[in-house]
């Protein structure tokens, strides 16, 4: 069976929500799907303990006229439709126009000890805390790069964690200059000031990065490289993230051209967010990392355009362009220190799915050859973690993904439903 939508939106973060609501406001039949159980994406992720900020709550609750398709994961394309896996089985969804709002994931870089339980991404631990992960009373070290570290610290503090310190790899000059530039974005400056106030008393160190995590069954202490030498800090949890990278797998699957001008590809769009494929639009972080405000504007812009209202879309161009400049500011001030390229030694596992060590990749200059010889990138995450890290470290670009773009049940690929218990076997 095939279900048809005038506008189908993939990803229910701020961009996807805005796209779906905007398209629905024009009377279009709109479907909004996400692999997660609730709308909101990462930045507006549901928190089991604390209510969302009001504008987030309004956006998440306002799904009138939109078919909300929770726990729906696109795995493949089939005769101009999307094959979608759900907990109950699978569906085929077709569309008049498609909006890709797949957002971003964290950039996670390998270092000795990073596979120890208790080591997570920075946004990763924030997401887990919102799910109810026990962090109260735990000593947490937060490290990596970018404003997300402060947001993560704020969430963890609210959940009762003892944040031992925030270690930013960018140097103090860059962070200060970034803060000074925020005056051009008053809402962000205000938000940053609030964050700093709430995090007063927590050490925020610059030019500092985690070199190594130690522990037996889980992380117990970390070595931190600071401008004043190596410091060892005891902790129960280590949250390290080096910023965000666009999720482009779905766009690539649909044949949309990607922009490869940066290390990590982004979806290539025209001024009004059309991709290289007819009737397919993209909005928000999948088109390049620039933050929440851009995602909301571009989502609305794509929603207007997908519903055929080009003039309404055009009216959002000026604010969008202005907010996009924030992305460039972020990239410039939080550029990664080249010393981070050397964190992993020959024995450090790079591919966590297949347990491939950095030393095994010596001599390989492309991802496919490395994969064939070592299984690097062949596991369940399909190279989302190691392939992205290796690209960042200057080894080789990530190889293009192939369908299914997420591991799927055989029954899904066969288009069968519902799932019976002996169909639980998965292939990747």
């Amino acid at each position: 069976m095939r279900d048809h939508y005038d506008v189908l939106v993939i990803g229910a973060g701020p961009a996807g929500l805005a796209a779906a609501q905007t398209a629905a406001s024009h009377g279009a039949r709109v479907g909004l799907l996400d692999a997660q159980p609730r709308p909101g994406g990462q930045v507006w992720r549901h928190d089991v303990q604390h209510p969302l900020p009001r504008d987030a709550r309004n956006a998440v609750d306002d799904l009138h006229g939109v078919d909300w398709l929770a726990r729906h994961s696109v795995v493949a394309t089939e005769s101009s439709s999307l094959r979608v896996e759900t907990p109950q089985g699978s569906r085929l969804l077709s569309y008049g126009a498609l909006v890709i709002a797949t957002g971003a994931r964290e950039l996670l870089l390998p270092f000795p000890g990073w596979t120890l339980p208790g080591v997570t991404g920075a946004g990763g631990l924030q997401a887990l805390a919102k799910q109810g992960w026990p962090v109260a009373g735990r000593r947490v070290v937060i490290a990596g790069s970018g404003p997300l570290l402060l947001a993560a610290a704020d969430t963890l503090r609210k959940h009762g964690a003892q944040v031992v310190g925030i270690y930013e790899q960018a140097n103090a000059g860059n962070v200060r200059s970034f803060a000074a530039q925020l005056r051009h974005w008053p809402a962000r400056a205000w938000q940053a000031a609030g964050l700093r106030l709430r995090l007063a008393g927590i050490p925020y160190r610059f030019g500092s990065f985690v070199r190594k995590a130690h522990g037996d069954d889980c992380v117990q202490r970390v070595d931190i490289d600071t401008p004043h030498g190596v410091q060892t800090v005891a902790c129960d949890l280590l949250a390290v993230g080096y910023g965000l990278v666009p999720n482009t797998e779905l766009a690539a699957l649909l044949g949309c051209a990607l922009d490869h001008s940066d290390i990590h590809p982004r979806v290539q769009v025209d001024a009004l967010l059309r991709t290289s494929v007819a009737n397919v639009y993209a909005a928000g972080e999948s088109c390049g990392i620039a933050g929440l405000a851009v995602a909301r504007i571009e989502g609305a812009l794509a929603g207007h355009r997908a519903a055929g209202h080009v003039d309404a879309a055009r009216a959002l161009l000026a604010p969008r362009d202005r907010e996009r400049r924030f992305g460039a500011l972020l990239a410039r001030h939080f550029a990664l220190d080249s010393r981070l390229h050397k964190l992993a030694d020959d024995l450090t596992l790079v591919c966590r799915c297949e347990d491939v060590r950095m030393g095994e990749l010596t001599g390989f200059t492309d991802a496919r050859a490395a994969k064939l010889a070592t299984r690097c990138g062949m596991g369940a995450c399909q190279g989302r973690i190691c392939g992205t890290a290796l690209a960042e470290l200057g080894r080789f670009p990530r190889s293009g993904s192939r369908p299914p773009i997420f591991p799927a049940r055989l029954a899904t690929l066969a288009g069968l439903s519902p799932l019976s218990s002996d169909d639980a076997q998965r292939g990747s």
Partner: protein
Amino acid sequence: MSARIRLTVNGHPVEVPAGASVAVAVAHVTLRFRRSVSDTPRAPLCGMGVCFECRVQVDGVAHVRACMTPASEGMQVVTDA
């Protein structure tokens, strides 16, 4: 405050708040979510369904990402570690 959900992890009874993920329920019992191919213990890394480190068995279905699955009453979760 809100409703609690009761489920089991490796046979141990666990209670989590409504809306919590299976990953949270597992974390109350063990941080060893799965064994890697070279037999090292693993736990969630990304928290958002990308890394697949949190895979567990839920009600007999293998390879379920614990961080993306809401805990529900009576659920039986088994880790592989």
